[in-house]
């Protein structure tokens, strides 16, 4: 029998998910050298650097990481991943933390990247593809309509160059894909889910 995710601690769910990534168990081998933090182009602006993320996990303080701006500042450049001497896939771990922050309700209002990601998912689920104009438009309406005004000059320049197609392309298989996606979420066993512990 499978344990319901909501009945487990967020740390347990996190580890279960991370171990399902190929070579995910390498996270146990972190030597706290800080190569990840030093390689990260945005760590200077993070509440907790990538090294501190793993330190927090070990200290049982994952919740503070999930609330922090750290995970939403990861731009997926993969420098940490390719440089880690222990082979830890830090970028995949950041993705996992983003998902857990959303799933367990830790996302702070200031995390704009969470808003844009959710809009992105909605649009793709609807059409099968993403159209940039509706994505950017909805994002600014939701976060800062005044900033949208400031963007008008650039938008106009892009429009004049034919770079602002308004109508999203919908793929033929969108409906099938949507049904399969939804079923995947309901019945699909998470790739890393384990049998109930005895």
């Amino acid at each position, binding site marked *: 029998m499978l344990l319901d995710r909501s009945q487990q601690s967020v740390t347990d769910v996190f580890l279960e*998910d991370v171990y*399902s*990534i*190929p070579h995910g168990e390498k996270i146990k081998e972190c030597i706290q050298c800080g190569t990840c933090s030093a390689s990260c*182009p*945005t760590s200077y*602006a993070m509440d907790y650097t990538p090294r501190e993320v793993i330190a927090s996990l070990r200290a049982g303080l994952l919740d503070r990481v999930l609330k922090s701006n750290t995970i*939403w*500042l990861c*731009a*997926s*450049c*993969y*420098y940490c*991943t*390719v440089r880690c001497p222990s082979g830890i896939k830090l*970028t995949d771990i950041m*993705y*996992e933390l983003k*998902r857990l922050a*959303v799933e367990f309700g830790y996302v702070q209002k200031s995390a*704009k*990247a*969470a808003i*844009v*990601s*959710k809009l*992105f*998912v909605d649009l*793709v*689920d609807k059409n*099968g*593809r993403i*159209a*940039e*104009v509706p994505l950017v438009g909805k*994002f600014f309406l939701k976060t800062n309509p005044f900033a949208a005004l400031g963007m008008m000059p*650039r938008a106009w320049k*892009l429009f004049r*160059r*034919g*770079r*602002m*197609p308004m109508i999203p*392309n919908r*793929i033929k*298989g*969108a409906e*099938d*894909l949507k049904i*399969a*996606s939804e*079923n*995947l*979420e309901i019945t*699909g*066993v*998470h*790739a*890393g889910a384990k049998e109930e512990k005895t």
Partner: protein
Amino acid sequence: MNFSYYPGCSLEGMNKAYDKSARAVCDALGINLAELNDWNCCGASAYISIRELRAHLLSARNLAIAEKEKKDLVVVCPSCLTTLTKTNHYMAENPKLRQTISKALKETELQYWGSVKVRHLLEVIVNEVGQNEIKARIKNSLKDLKVAPYYGCQLTRPFGEIDDKEFPTILDTLLTWVGAKPVNFPVKTKCCGGMLMMTNEDVALGLVRNLLECARENGAECIATICPLCHMNLEAYQDNVNKHFGTDYKIPILYFTQIIGLAFGFSRKTLGIEEELTPSKALFEKHLEVIR
């Protein structure tokens, strides 16, 4: 050479110029690109940040269609490259994930056996076409146009299948073949900020500034890009960088396919040049024999 071609969402939208120039160059080189039938979003960074399994399903659907078309898949957006390659690898390495995704694919009447290779256009041009064929098609010598070769992150990271993960040279090589002169560009694989330009503009502008400054210091007359998102951040936000930092960068940003296309004598219209927000006219007057 026949391939299924995956343009990706960005090339349908704000970055059509990349699509236009890629198709023109491939046409000239005998690379036959047939657009992947009814392709969908690859499940890029923003998607996998919310939904993991669905993201793999999105990629797997594209791979399954390519397998049905019995061709390898050529992509141009490095982010699509990484996402599709990741699903390809993770499905091969994790049987549970493979089962779960295969079951979902079946509902869309598709199946994927794992036979498709995902390749980037840059690597296909260099490795499949090669130097002699490319040099034979040159109509404009480019007269040693000094180019900063910018690779960005996801062409070589995390998988490193195309070239060195941190200091690739494949674009430098190609630029040399078409008569351009790649300058020393130590930040060639540094991050442009990607989607952070929308959500954390201050951070992203700083990263773009580092790239522009390095290009200028090394005497580059333009920057060659491979990624539609890097391209966008460098050209459409160059003005913002100048406003934010009080700088005066005016560096033209061109897709690598546009630079090859210019060398092959295509018109600027065919290549979608001047659709970018950084003017590049002066460049052509200086470096092209025939301006079309």
